[in-house]
């Protein structure tokens, strides 16, 4: 996967830019806003509208919404990326091992995966959060525990289709150990699926974490966007005329999720050229070049079967 192809893909470009911008906010929040403005209750007059001093107004506690948004970015991003990473590691290990080992190992691991998969996630998350507390780390563990199973099935399916490829059999016949084959022969060929899995898990984590925080199971003292929504709701922001207090964090969550989703699509397309759309401008170029041949036809997105 070359970097050049990454940049050329429009979806990747948009997704990466959005993600990059949010990372910037998360890494250097001090450049854009101040922590004090975000946290201090009564720092400003409550429920102020948009102004140059307060780009998004203030909460009903007198905190600057924009500052909260900026400082919240780090929280959300950390949860998303860490939970996403751990969940992916689990799905990869369990899924690939099940596929490669086959037999009774596969049976047991698949059974376990499927049981976790069909457990009702949200109630489970609520129960876990209720008993384990509300710190961010608990949140991450909850997300990982409920989020790995879907990816595991995907990994297993992919690994199963690869299992009988000749190069793996060649490695077996060469005398390689099973662990080596799984880690160094099979997994490297699945990188795009693993990355896509990671992005999907991160996306899931953003939405699930925000959801949990919204219903009050997150760390209520944090600046996270979900928590903002919690306070906004508990203070009946809409009735108070402060719609921005709800819209701003909601939109931010949506934007981050979109960034992950776009990057996910882009990885799919880069990995599988058959999914790439034939851009209108390329077709026009082709037509102009053959002035003496009328190339009529519908613009299809065809898989190049050759």
């Amino acid at each position, binding site marked *: 996967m070359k970097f050049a192809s990454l940049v050329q893909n429009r979806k990747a470009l948009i997704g990466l830019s959005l993600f990059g911008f949010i990372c910037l906010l998360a890494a250097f929040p001090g450049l854009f806003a101040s922590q004090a403005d975000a946290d201090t209750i009564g720092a400003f007059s409550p429920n102020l509208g948009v102004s140059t001093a307060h780009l998004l107004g203030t909460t009903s506690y007198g905190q600057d919404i924009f500052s909260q948004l900026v400082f919240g970015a780090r929280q959300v991003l950390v949860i998303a990326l860490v939970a996403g990473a751990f969940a992916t590691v689990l799905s990869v290990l369990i899924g690939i091992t099940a596929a490669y080992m086959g037999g009774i190992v596969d049976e047991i691991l698949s059974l376990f995966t499927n049981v976790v998969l069909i457990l009702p996630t949200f109630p489970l998350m609520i129960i876990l959060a209720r008993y384990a507390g509300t710190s961010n780390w608990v949140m991450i563990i909850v997300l990982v525990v409920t989020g790995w199973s879907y990816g595991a099935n995907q990994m297993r399916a992919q690994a199963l289709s690869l299992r009988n*490829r*000749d*190069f793996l*059999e*060649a*490695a*077996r*016949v*060469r*005398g*390689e150990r099973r662990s080596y084959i799984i880690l160094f*022969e099979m997994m*490297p*060929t699945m*990188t795009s699926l693993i990355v896509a899995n990671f992005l999907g898990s991160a996306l899931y984590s953003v939405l699930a974490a925000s959801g949990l925080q919204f219903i009050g199971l997150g760390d209520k003292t944090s600046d996270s966007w979900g928590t903002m929504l919690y306070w906004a709701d508990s203070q009946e922001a809409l009735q108070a005329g402060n719609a921005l207090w709800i819209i701003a964090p909601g939109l931010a969550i949506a934007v981050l999720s979109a960034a992950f989703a776009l990057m996910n699509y882009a990885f799919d397309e880069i990995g599988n050229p058959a999914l790439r759309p034939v851009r209108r401008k390329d077709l026009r170029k082709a037509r102009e070049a053959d002035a003496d041949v009328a190339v009529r036809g519908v613009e299809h997105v065809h898989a190049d079967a050759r």
Partner: protein
Amino acid sequence: MTPLLETRDLSRHFKVGGKLFSHQMLHAVDDVNLTINEREIVALVGESGSGKSTMARLLAQVYKPTTGQITFQGKDLAQLRGRKAQLKYRSDVPMVFQDPFASLNPVYKVSHGIKRGLKLHRPELSASERHEELLRVVSAVGLNPPEEIIERYPYELSGGQRQRIGFAQALAYRPKLILADEPVSMLDVSIRIGLLNVMAKMRDEEGVSILYITHDIASARYVSDRVMVMYGGHVVEAGPTESVLADPQHPYTQLLLSAVPDPRAPLEITTEAAKAEPPAVIDPQPGCRFRARCPIAIDRCAHVTPLLQIVEPEHTAACHVAAPAPVAV
């Protein structure tokens, strides 16, 4: 001269059938006696379903025999214990695969498999010696300049070149016997000769024996010293290549020969036998497995399984009509 590899009554059966407690067995290979000597190329010829690929995997120890014995350099393979002995066998008897597009891991350079093989099987070599070996084997299979080739990824090589890498991988172990499972079937006809010449060169210059598995009897003739024809899991004819091809005894061998496209020969007519398909041998009864398609089948063929009988020196065939068992006086 003791043979390099020998099998005795080798059989491999697979359980088939959709039902939960079905005991249907697919007889992929049955009672095969195979001998391979040093410095020789033996061709195992048959269509799909004949059992030839299963034979390759039995000899590569991918499958364990259901019954029967495989002896390599006088030792029974079933007696091989421990990782060290297993590895030694794998380095003495490596395998080359059929599909050049799937046999190399696409994320690594083409030298990856060779390097891993050298590390695993020839630990006595130092790093620089390994590199020397790498260049030597890549050059030996006709890929030059080797320094440039080893830096390429599989997608940068053609099918023929990739197959040569497959042979180079095998050669890196200093093997005694290479199991080549249809190594040229997926290559263009014009490229095949190059690979076949490489195989002959390995036999002559490196002293390696090769088990050449194929469905193309013409290429078997070109490169092999001895040939064995398989049908439905049984060996139906075996002997020196020229002898078998000049004077085929078994009706199936004759059918194979007549089906080979040869522009220099007049067209031979297809019969019903050619239209039929090779069988999937499930829970077979005794009797010749070719009888359903055989134009000269007699009553005995349906009841008694024919065994290999000698028709000429070293040339055997299993047919009640062409090579009947000697009648006891």
